[in-house]
């Protein structure tokens, strides 16, 4: 049992903090205000340092950093409020291609991702299938040597910046839903693809994407025909580290700074007992969120896929983030209504921002209900929930 970061982690952390300290001061606010939680300048600067492929083996041009160093990279960017979702999604596609992709995909797509030239986005959700992702109806039909794709995806975040969408399509409608799916890597500049913005409560831009007779060669297929669900399982395993823990870290740091600064009355909020109680609760939840995240990293470092541990971490940290943001709003009182970065809003607007943003963390990457279902079944061993039959 040991809770001390490794020497390698501490060295890397110093390097990352140096990098973040040298970014223009308004970078975080600007990236959030733009609505696109991706900064190409930060992304390219990360690429220059080799950080986009930091986790990859040295013999493949990477830095061979261990899972703890990678966790530190995520945590430090989160703490500084610099979103790296574009990189994380692209990297998980790269890691998935490394395992299930063809030689050609590995050779052509992975270097472009890791070099910081292109981004990927995920095309799983549809207007009528979210949690029940295997119910996807977007069709891919064989057409000579290639495929024709027709349908619609929802919440295709980053599609307006990405070069490809990692798209789950139905290739056989006549078999049980999980067995008739195939994964494709579809270029977003292909004729027939349309990207429409969808604006969100958290200020983030996501997209609806439309596919009308989009032709792709068979080389765009990832994994076996009708083997899309297996590819999804590989990709999902890389998506488990919950982002909410990072958002909570950022929020708590900002809230502590706010609480120590005298407000209009001349008193620092931290002098009020309800503010101290709120801070104590949020800091305790943050400690638990970080521990649950470190446990996932530790399991990964031992080549164990964190499964129920991932659900425990995701459920706890996202619910804790929502609770913390809402409680900080409550103790900020009517001043909590003030919004915007670089304004008079408490904590430079981050409390109000996170109050609106945090709700999505309990929804994306498996809703809290999906996580509770996994915990009930696989952690507690409760029987699987059955839909009630008519007349039962």
């Amino acid at each position, binding site marked *: 049992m040991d809770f001390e970061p490794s020497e390698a982690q501490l060295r890397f952390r110093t390097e990352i903090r140096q990098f973040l300290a040298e970014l223009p001061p308004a970078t975080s606010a600007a990236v959030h205000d733009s609505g696109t939680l991706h900064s190409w300048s930060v992304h390219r600067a990360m690429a220059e340092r080799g950080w986009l492929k930091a986790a990859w083996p040295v013999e493949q041009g990477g830095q061979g950093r261990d899972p703890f160093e990678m966790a530190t990279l995520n945590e430090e960017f989160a*703490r500084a409020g610099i979103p790296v979702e574009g990189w994380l999604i692209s990297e998980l596609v790269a890691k998935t291609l490394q395992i299930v992709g063809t030689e050609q995909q590995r050779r052509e797509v992975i270097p472009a991702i890791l070099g910081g030239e292109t981004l990927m986005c995920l095309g799983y959700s549809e207007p009528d299938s979210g949690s029940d992702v295997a119910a996807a109806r977007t069709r891919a039909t064989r057409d000579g040597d290639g495929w024709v794709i027709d349908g619609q995806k929802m919440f295709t975040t980053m599609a307006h910046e990405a070069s490809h969408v990692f798209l789950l399509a139905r290739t056989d409608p006549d078999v049980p839903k999980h067995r008739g799916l195939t994964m494709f890597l579809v270029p977003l500049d292909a004729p027939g693809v349309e990207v429409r913005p969808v604006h969100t409560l958290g200020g983030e831009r996501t997209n609806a994407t439309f596919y009308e007779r989009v032709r792709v060669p068979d080389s765009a297929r990832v994994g076996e025909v009708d083997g899309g669900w297996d590819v999804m399982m590989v990709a999902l395993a890389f998506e488990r580290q919950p982002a909410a823990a990072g958002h909570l870290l950022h929020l708590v740091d900002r809230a502590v700074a706010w609480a120590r600064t005298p407000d209009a009355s001349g008193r620092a909020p931290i002098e009020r007992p309800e503010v101290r109680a709120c801070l104590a609760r949020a*800091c305790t939840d943050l400690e638990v969120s970080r521990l649950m995240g470190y446990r996932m990293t530790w399991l990964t470092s031992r080549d164990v896929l964190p499964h129920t541990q991932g659900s425990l971490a995701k459920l706890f940290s996202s619910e804790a983030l929502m609770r913390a943001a809402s409680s900080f709003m409550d103790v900020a009182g009517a001043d909590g209504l003030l919004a915007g970065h670089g304004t008079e809003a408490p904590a430079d607007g981050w409390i109000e921002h996170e109050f609106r943003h945090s709700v999505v963390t309990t929804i994306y990457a498996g809703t809290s209900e999906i996580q509770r279902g996994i915990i009930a079944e696989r952690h507690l061993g409760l029987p699987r929930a059955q839909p009630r039959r008519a007349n039962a």
Partner: protein
Amino acid sequence: MIDFSLSTEQLDLRAGLTALFADHSTPARVRAAEPLGFDPALWAVLTDFGFPHLAGSRDGAPAGLAELVVAAQAAGACLASVPLVETLVATRLLDRLGRTGTDLVTFAPRPAIGGIARTVPWAAVADRVIAWDEGRLVVSGPGHDVTTPKQTLAGLALGHVDLTGATPLADGPDAPELFDEALADWRVLTAAGLVGIGTAGLHLGVEYAKTRHQFGQPIGAFQALAHQLADAATLVDGAELLVLEAAWAADTGSARRLGLAAMACTFAGRAARRATDRSLHAHGGYGYTLEYDIQLYFRRAKALGLLSDAAGGDGAATEAVVALALADTDEGRP
């Protein structure tokens, strides 16, 4: 390097004590020890095992909190009716002062008010009581004035102790730190006990929900029930991680140890109360009857939760956590 695996010592102790408590702290024994809540025969077995002196240097290298939390958790899981946590705290405290005690010494986590230490766990059966009284760490007894309440929620041999005539253990500038360290030990070990209570209490509800059928299926298949148990399990899991970190911080002398102890205790108190409450609810009407064991866990979790909230005085846990939060922020998160 961060490592969540338990040591051989921890695993051996867990296996040994789990077997011991399964034999000597059955639900029947827990009931028989009520209403006082003390089982002298079980205590004799534990003192034979080496408790509480294995926490001190009398018999060689003392066990660290990393091992002691494993013991406290195993005891909590079987609702052991013995002053395990408090005697371990007293042993560690006396050891820091270069002393050993041979009699049963308990520890009052809540500071005395007006010369009276109230609701002190195990004061009704202890020979001596260590308490914090107006800036002094004192030891009272034997033969002191202890009032035993007629009825309590969950035993724990509570007593109110009149500290008149108590002997100072420390009254110099080092006294507050000695109390804070002992209080932190109490918090971490009590948190471990609460994790044991929460885990075992929740397990009862989960097993019941697997076998109880309504509307043609096990009630555990209903999401309305399963999701409440999943939420409780998440809290108990988080509490266990916090306890391990807090124990490690104490053993390594980390500057974060006092704050982590307060976090662990508050969080585990919340988790155990929620877990036993939801588990009792899952039992339906049977959970309300005395013949089912869940009520034992429900009462014990609440009792230790309340003692945890009062430990160190009103708002003390919040202050310890806020102090850690400020230090963490100042130091750029260690």
